[in-house]
């Protein structure tokens, strides 16, 4: 046999047909066991193909491949068999790796259970590449996912190193198989090139779309990552378990698919593609998905002559109607932050802007020639709730598209909006933000109609609906609603009426910048942009969102101490060492100065700096001493340095005091305030810094204090955007609350000196990791809240005591409540800086963003699902309102809006006692701050009655539950006290109103 094989070798070398295969074989040192299909010319014997052929290099049928794979193949055999699988032409029988079948399933199973655990982690690039290619099939991917799933169950019961390794291998295989953006398309292409029946093909693709698109991969890998011990999974494979990364990959893959296939214009492919897209829209990370999809599509097509129109239409045409709507909505949501960076519309000129046109171009492409899409587009401007969640720029873009239509869609829309806008119920109950957005939309629409058919607008404006609307608006008690009515009336009349006949209210509030901005909206005329402008827009976005250097996990390499690597587990990062005594022999200083010194050597002068050690003990010498930051720029660098413990901690420690010191010192702080605030908002603690939350909070307060007029609104909006954690949002709110109090002159004595806060006795604290988890970051806010609550309730309680002892009035020197009054007069009044800016800088941004968030995400909003956050928001608002006090500028509007917000929360409050407490507290603050009781009763009679009824109900209910303990502590008791206080307050107000009604007759 050996002779035979030798002969085979010599012959084989001459046959060039199998060259590539031979190189694979020749690399190994083992005897060549290849057999060729060509006859051996010149050899004396003919090898008979037999069972033993299995061990020979090149398998001839798929069955043989399977047998080889099962028999623990050597690397060369593996290469040979896998490449045979990938080149179906080289096999004798008909075998198609990509379409599902029993043989394929067996091969995949063998690969996963035998080959991957044995070979994957140790393989070289070639084998990995072959494995990747042979596993790039629908069957294989679903098999991998289910194997991971099976392993998770095993890992959860008992964690074994072997299972861990297998799981990690499988995940890395999956990651490497899926990673290229073109893989999904490849899989489809190979699947459709097979000769399988259409039905079978469709079924296979559907199951694939299910696995990939429905987020199954995501959830399974994420679960596996959870079950695996930390850091076993390499970083480059973690994208499979990270929702946003996965969604982005999906977006890129689908875009690639669309780009490659849309030229063919094949209906079934388009069907398959949109099947996947419809699935992908439900993954749950719509924004990264859509962003990746559009960006990839645009960039891939940037060079080619094809417009994205065809590719987009090709992809979206066969989508079901609801998916189309979702697609459209997500696209608009993606565009929104791109074209309006801030929601401060005052800054944006009403004139045509590039961003709007670019967005309009994309929207136009989406809806062009698609009836469903066009229908879906309309609610984005007509529906008050949806429309208010988009910035005006998006609505302008939508109008730019709609106005291009020939038919009278625009008129219908205008009528719809006008009807809504004039509806008395809407005027009375809709949140201000919705009313504003409706007014803006209406004005833009009116502008478009006026430009094309001025007569049509005239009829619309002359209609009874509009007249009725303006007059019901003028009747409204809400000043903003009234004002909006005036704006609409003036603007529309300015368009249709002749000179001299124009509506003019002539009031001061029609002359503000705000009013002019609104009136200018009728002049808005956006055109459809071009592909270039859109491309520019998206690339700008990429530049703007360039990933900041993220804090990487501390590397697991051994730390280097004094230049030499150490062994053992990682120590804590430079924990402060206790002062230790230098032990050892007594050191005797040298002293033989008698012995001859080398006089010839003339000493060199000392260099410019040669500091002596800071400490006698060598272990305490800190050589990389960092200095406290002297400039805001230094501070930001230090805070960004998440690699080094020293600078980070030092920076954080000095952040608050430095910022405060620099306030009013040149423009250093004000120039960087927003950037600094951004850093602080997203600051994480990589070093377990002591008092991290407190320091961060103090720093943030200092930044807000540096320029409250710009930073407070910014922070108020920031608390609602982005991907911040609940704790981070709470810190932002707390910073707002406390800075507002400080502005109002209500700061605590240690407000400027954060270090002085003494930690409580260790035995009263939870272990540090639990402590952090259970101590809310709003501790300070909570303290302020408690003291305020006490101060609100205490006089009421005293008064009650006073009244219950009315029969003793004769002997009382002073009534209880008057004692309180005298105590209050003693406080020195500080100038209240908050009152002036509260409404504009604190209240409005917070409430608007809240309403917008709730409107956009409904019950999915974190502000609804996390009561803790809502409670913090309410308490912040109430505290700020109280701090701002009766002198608040625009108190009436603030009170009205806050009241409306609180009333809207009634249902939610009954479900959660913390929310209930916060809502009650908010009501109490409202009543407290509005000192003019009679006016309150006049203007807010409806709200007052509603509140009273509801609080009455709450009071009854809490009393009935029997949860109130005897000593009056606990949540329920607190709620009951608050409710009682509220009832008393409301009673007082009504009493005052009745007294006024009676005139001076009853002198009580």
């Amino acid at each position: 046999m050996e002779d035979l094989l030798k002969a085979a070798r010599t012959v084989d070398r001459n046959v060039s047909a199998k060259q590539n295969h031979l190189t694979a074989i020749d690399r190994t040192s083992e005897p060549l066991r290849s057999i060729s299909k060509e006859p051996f010319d010149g050899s004396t014997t003919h090898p008979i193909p037999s069972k033993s052929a299995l061990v020979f290099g090149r398998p001839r049928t798929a069955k043989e491949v399977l047998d080889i794979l099962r028999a623990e193949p050597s690397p060369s055999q593996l290469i040979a068999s896998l490449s045979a699988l990938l080149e179906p032409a080289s096999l004798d029988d008909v075998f198609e790796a990509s379409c599902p079948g029993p043989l394929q399933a067996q091969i995949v199973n063998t690969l996963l259970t035998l080959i991957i655990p044995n070979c994957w982690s140790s393989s070289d690039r070639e084998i990995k590449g072959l494995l990747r290619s042979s596993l790039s099939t629908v069957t294989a991917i679903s098999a991998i996912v289910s194997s991971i799933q099976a392993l998770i169950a095993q890992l959860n019961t008992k964690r074994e190193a072997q299972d861990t390794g297998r799981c990690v291998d499988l995940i890395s295989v999956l990651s490497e198989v899926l990673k290229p953006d073109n893989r999904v398309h490849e899989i489809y292409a190979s699947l459709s090139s097979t000769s399988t029946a259409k039905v079978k093909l469709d079924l296979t693709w559907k199951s694939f779309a299910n696995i990939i698109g429905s987020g199954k991969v995501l959830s399974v890998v994420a679960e596996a990552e959870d079950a695996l011990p930390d850091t076993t999974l390499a970083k480059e494979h973690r994208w499979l378990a990270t929702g946003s990364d996965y969604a982005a990959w999906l977006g890129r893959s689908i875009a690639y698919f669309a780009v490659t296939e849309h030229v063919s214009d094949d209906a079934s492919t388009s069907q398959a593609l949109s099947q996947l897209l419809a699935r992908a829209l439900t993954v749950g990370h719509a924004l990264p998905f859509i962003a990746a999809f559009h960006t990839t599509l645009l960039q891939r097509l940037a060079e080619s002559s094809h417009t994205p129109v065809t590719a987009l239409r090709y992809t979206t045409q066969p989508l079901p109607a609801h998916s189309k709507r979702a697609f459209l909505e997500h696209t608009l949501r993606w565009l929104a932050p791109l074209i309006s960076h801030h929601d401060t519309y005052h800054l944006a000129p009403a004139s045509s802007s590039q961003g709007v046109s670019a967005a309009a171009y994309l929207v136009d492409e989406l809806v062009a020639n698609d009836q469903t899409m066009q229908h879906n587009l309309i609610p984005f401007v007509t529906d008050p709730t949806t429309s208010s969640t988009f910035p005006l720029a998006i609505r302008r873009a939508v109008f730019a598209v709609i106005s291009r239509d020939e038919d009278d869609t625009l008129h219908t829309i205008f009528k719809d909006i006008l009807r809504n806008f004039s509806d008395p119920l809407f005027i009375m109950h809709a949140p201000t933000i919705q009313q504003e957005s409706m007014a803006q939309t209406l004005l833009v629409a009116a502008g478009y109609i006026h430009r094309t058919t001025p007569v049509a607008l005239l009829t619309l404006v002359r209609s009874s609906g509009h007249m009725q609307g303006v007059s019901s608006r003028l009747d409204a008690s809400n000043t903003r609603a009234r004002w909006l009515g005036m704006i609409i009336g003036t603007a529309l009349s300015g368009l249709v009426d002749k000179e001299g006949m124009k509506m003019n209210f002539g009031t001061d509030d029609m002359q503000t910048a705000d009013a002019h901005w609104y009136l200018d909206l009728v002049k808005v005329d956006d055109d459809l942009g071009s592909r270039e402008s859109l491309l520019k827009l998206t690339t700008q976005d990429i530049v703007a969102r360039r990933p900041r250097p993220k804090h990487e996990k501390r590397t697991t390499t051994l730390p280097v101490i004094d230049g030499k690597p150490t062994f053992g587990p990682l120590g804590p990062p430079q924990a402060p060492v206790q002062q230790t005594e230098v032990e050892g022999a007594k050191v005797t200083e040298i002293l033989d100065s008698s012995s001859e010194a080398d006089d010839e050597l003339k000493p060199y002068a000392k260099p410019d700096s040669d500091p002596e050690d800071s400490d006698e003990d060598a272990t305490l010498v800190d050589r990389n001493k960092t200095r406290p930051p002297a400039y805001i720029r230094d501070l930001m660098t230090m805070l960004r340095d998440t690699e080094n413990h020293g600078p980070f901690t030092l920076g954080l420690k000095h952040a608050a005091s430095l910022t405060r010191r620099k306030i009013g010192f040149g423009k250093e702080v004000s120039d960087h305030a927003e950037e600094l605030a951004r850093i602080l908002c997203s600051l994480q603690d990589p070093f377990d810094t002591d008092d991290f939350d407190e320091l961060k909070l103090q720093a943030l307060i200092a930044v807000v204090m540096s320029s409250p007029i710009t930073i407070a609104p910014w922070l108020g909006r920031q608390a609602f955007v982005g991907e911040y954690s609940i704790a981070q949002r709470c810190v932002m709110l707390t910073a707002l609350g406390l800075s507002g109090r400080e502005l109002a002159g209500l700061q605590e004595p240690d407000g400027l000196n954060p270090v002085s806060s003494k930690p409580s006795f260790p035995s009263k604290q939870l272990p540090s990791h639990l402590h952090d988890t259970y101590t809310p970051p709003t501790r300070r806010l909570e303290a302020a809240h408690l003291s305020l609550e006490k101060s609100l309730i205490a006089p009421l309680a005293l008064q009650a005591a006073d009244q219950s002892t009315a029969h003793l009035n004769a002997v009382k020197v002073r009534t209880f409540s008057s004692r309180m009054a005298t105590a209050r007069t003693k406080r020195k009044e500080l100038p209240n800086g908050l009152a002036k800016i509260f409404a504009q800088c604190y209240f409005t941004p917070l409430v608007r963003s809240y309403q917008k968030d709730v409107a956009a995400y409904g019950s999915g909003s974190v502000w609804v699902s996390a009561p803790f956050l809502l409670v913090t928001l309410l308490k912040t608002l109430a505290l700020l309102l109280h701090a701002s006090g009766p002198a608040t500028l625009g108190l009436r509007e603030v009170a009205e809006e806050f009241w409306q917000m609180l009333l809207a929360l009634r249902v939610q409050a009954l479900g959660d006692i913390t929310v209930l407490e916060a809502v009650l507290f908010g009501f109490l603050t409202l009543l407290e701050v509005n000192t003019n009781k009679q006016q309150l009763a006049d203007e807010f009679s409806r709200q007052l009655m509603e509140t009273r009824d509801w609080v009455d109900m709450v009071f009854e209910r809490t009393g009935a539950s029997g949860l109130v303990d005897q000593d009056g502590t606990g949540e329920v008791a607190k709620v009951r006290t608050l409710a009682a206080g509220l009832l008393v307050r409301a009673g007082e107000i009504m009493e005052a109103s009745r007294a006024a009604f009676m005139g001076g007759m009853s002198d009580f």
Partner: protein
Amino acid sequence: MAPDLPLQASTLPPAQPKYTLRGHTAQVHAVRFLRRNSRLLTGDADGWIILWNVPIKRPVAVWRAHPQTILGVGVWGKGDEKIITHGRDNKLHVWQIRQEDETSLSKILPIEETTIERRAPWLLHSLDVNALNFCTFAMCPVPSLNQSTEESILVAVPGINDGAITITSLPSQTRVASIPPIAGINTGMLMALRLHHASTSLTVLAGYESGHVALFRTPSSGQTWKPSYVAKAHAQPVLSLDLALGLRACFSSSADAIIARHTLDASTEPALLKTKHAGQQSLVVRSDERVLATAGWDGRVRVYGTRGGMTELAVLKWHKEGCYAAAFADVLDEGEQLQGDESLARQGDEAEITTTAMTVSQRREANSAKTHWLAAGSKDGKVSLWDIY
């Protein structure tokens, strides 16, 4: 004022580095001059070794001797043809680089490219060092009786037990001695070693983690090795040791701020110098034994006089980060220099007619060899060259 004047005159201006060699990407842990100061050997924390041509300040050979940190380097043989490297991978390699081998070796510095494989020079010996610590090897030539045979050396490395020393002879690779840990004292790990072979007896100097410095001499046959001198001069681990035979003394430095001078003869108390600069490593005494230098973790190389009270003569500040290694060029005595000059002159005569360029480069070589270089390697991967005394 009046007192300022003599003071000013008595000091030189602050020293500045003459050259800096940038080639390493990791901390430089070892530097060594060889071949009559014409070459400089440097090794870094990633295991790279660079052989520099000192007169022209260019690399002549670059290879990765160990996959891990280089702990120390040494040279051996006639014309310093053999290079010894000791790495954290528990290996000690002896490489052969003759003058003619240099041309075939890579000159691409790690700072330019670390991924490509470079050809390593011929490996002559490889010893296993079975100890997990930082202590580099020590070596000394054994004066051979007949000149014709290859010169043999002794290499001391830490043994398996903490504090034990193993001495091996090369090229025979036979173990000559193993010194047990010092009985009765918990010395901790071995940190620094020095060897000296006098005509008959071997002197071993060892520094320990506990701050002890011990001196061993070859015991009479049949007896175990016992220290003839033990002193705890430091509160922190000893980092380096060097011998000054002419002064009958040795010096030790440690992680604390003390430099100690021990006398080799009498067991007197060591003389200590409190420098107030903790962490001085790689203490070396220049071959003329007039000055010694330490590489400081505060980024400054300090030069002290060896005679008298170890006065601080120079503070060399250039590196921004801590220094780990220092080396003096050999001070070639007059005879040697003369010999060098003569050979140069002879060569010059021969090449006189050929080109002037040769003469220039040779003169440069001669000048460079005569310069009293001090090389310092730092954590930032740079090596600075100073011309001191």
